[in-house]
């Protein structure tokens, strides 16, 4: 039995093609994945991301607990509303999940985690809280829905659809959030475009969704979300990072704070220099599409594609790969695609940001 978000019947009514995504029955597309992709790059599109789980962490020692639990340093969060992207690591440095943590007040942080890993994460946080004798409490918020509105015109469409939102978000900086009544509005996303992620009571989700449709925002499925995030060079948990690799091997060194003296779970495992790195690839010849698990050959040794797709913006096939150190942008590697070795050019992600090609 698949789980359903509060917007499930809205998707069904709209004729969405539904798929099992981490145990959730979610829209893959509403007709054309590629047109939905272009809508986000050129105008405004929205995604139901209610399968992701907000967890509220409340208590006097909430910051101290997160300082130890997360690989990135919550001390970077100085002003209320500020968000931080971080990995949650195991003691051996493997990635349990990636998440965003919002600083609301010294006693109140909100953590948003992936759908398929949500239960594992809650259990992990609880175990860690017991071990650290933390006084903070964890409150998983399955009562909330989340709608991501993304694209160059996303913000003005939200202002049109949600009364009062303009006044509180017009000056909102990227990677910060604010509260509007029961709506929590963050200027974040997973597409490489401007926009908001709006967290709200599940009972109000369908009404906001309809208001956004009326304001001209195109419903988009998880298919477009995947091609958009890959063009933006963003990792997908379970593919580009897993419990088997450290963040340093998945292009996430920038999210790990090794500079401060604080201790955190997994820190000691990150002392050794990694032997593998993440790179971006662009297929240099027609002949197929890069896909996860394809083998990559370089002079420095073999690697593997972790995510691959056809990029609607570039009209080329792009991918992320984990390859040995020594591979550098500009190199041409060979990728095994259905038994044929095809050339692929190494680039530094992202491929696309704010509608523009970067590679």
């Amino acid at each position, binding site marked *: 039995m698949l789980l359903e978000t509060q917007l499930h019947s809205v998707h069904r009514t709209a004729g969405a*093609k539904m798929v099992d995504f981490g145990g959730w029955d979610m829209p*893959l*597309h509403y007709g*054309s*994945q*590629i047109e939905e992709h272009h809508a986000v790059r050129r105008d405004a599109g929205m995604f139901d991301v209610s399968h992701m789980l907000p967890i509220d962490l409340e208590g006097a020692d909430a910051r101290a607990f997160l300082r130890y639990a997360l690989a990135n340093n919550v001390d970077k969060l100085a002003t209320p509303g500020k968000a931080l992207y971080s990995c949650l690591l195991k003691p051996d440095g493997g990635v349990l999940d990636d998440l965003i943590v919002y600083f609301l007040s010294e006693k109140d942080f909100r953590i948003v985690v992936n759908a398929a890993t949500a239960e594992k994460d809650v259990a992990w946080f609880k175990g860690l809280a017991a071990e650290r004798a933390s006084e903070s409490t964890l409150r998983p918020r399955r009562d909330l829905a989340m709608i991501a509105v993304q694209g160059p015109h996303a913000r003005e469409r939200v202002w049109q659809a949600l009364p009062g939102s303009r006044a509180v978000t017009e000056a909102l900086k990227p990677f910060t959030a604010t509260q509007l009544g029961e709506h929590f509005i963050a200027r974040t996303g997973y597409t490489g475009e401007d926009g908001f992620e709006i967290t709200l009571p599940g009972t109000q989700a369908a009404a906001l969704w309809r208001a956004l449709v009326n304001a001209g925002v195109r419903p988009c499925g998880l*298919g477009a979300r995947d*091609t958009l995030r890959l063009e933006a060079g963003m990792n997908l948990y379970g593919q580009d990072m897993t419990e088997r690799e450290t963040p340093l091997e998945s292009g996430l060194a920038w999210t790990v704070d090794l500079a401060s003296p604080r201790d955190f779970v997994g820190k000691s495992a990150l002392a050794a220099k990694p032997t593998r790195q993440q790179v971006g690839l662009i297929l240099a010849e*027609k*002949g*197929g*599409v890069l*896909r996860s698990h394809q083998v990559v050959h370089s002079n420095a040794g073999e690697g593997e594609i972790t995510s691959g*797709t*056809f990029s*609607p913006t570039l009209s080329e*096939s792009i991918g992320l790969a984990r390859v040995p150190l020594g591979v550098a942008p500009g190199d041409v590697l060979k990728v095994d695609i*259905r038994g044929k070795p095809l050339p692929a050019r190494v680039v530094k992600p992202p491929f696309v940001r704010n509608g523009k090609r970067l590679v």
Partner: protein
Amino acid sequence: MNVPSNLRYTESHEWIRTETDGSLTIGITDHAQEALGDLVFIELPAVGRKLKAGEACAVVESVKAASDVYAPVAGEVIAANGEIVDAPEKVNADAYANWLYRLKPADGATPAKLLDAAAYTKLVSEA
């Protein structure tokens, strides 16, 4: 679902039309394009290539997945539709107008186990 009654079908979701000269025109069904989603890459067999019955001879690939296309009968490829190689989305727009390749069956070869429209409709509605 669009399943024209003048065509024959395979269980692997190809459609086949027998031309007046006995050659076969082969494409993928509307159900197949729908299931794959937006097509972004198509590879077709070279003209002159000899195929065995059931041999994988073409590839249709969407944003989501790649799928092989099989020869319904042994024979020789006599034409390939280059137009769809440059514009795979045409197959999404009309899977029956935009054929993949044409095959001249080998002497005495007859396609095994082709379905008529009713049988194919039943197959995909039960899937």
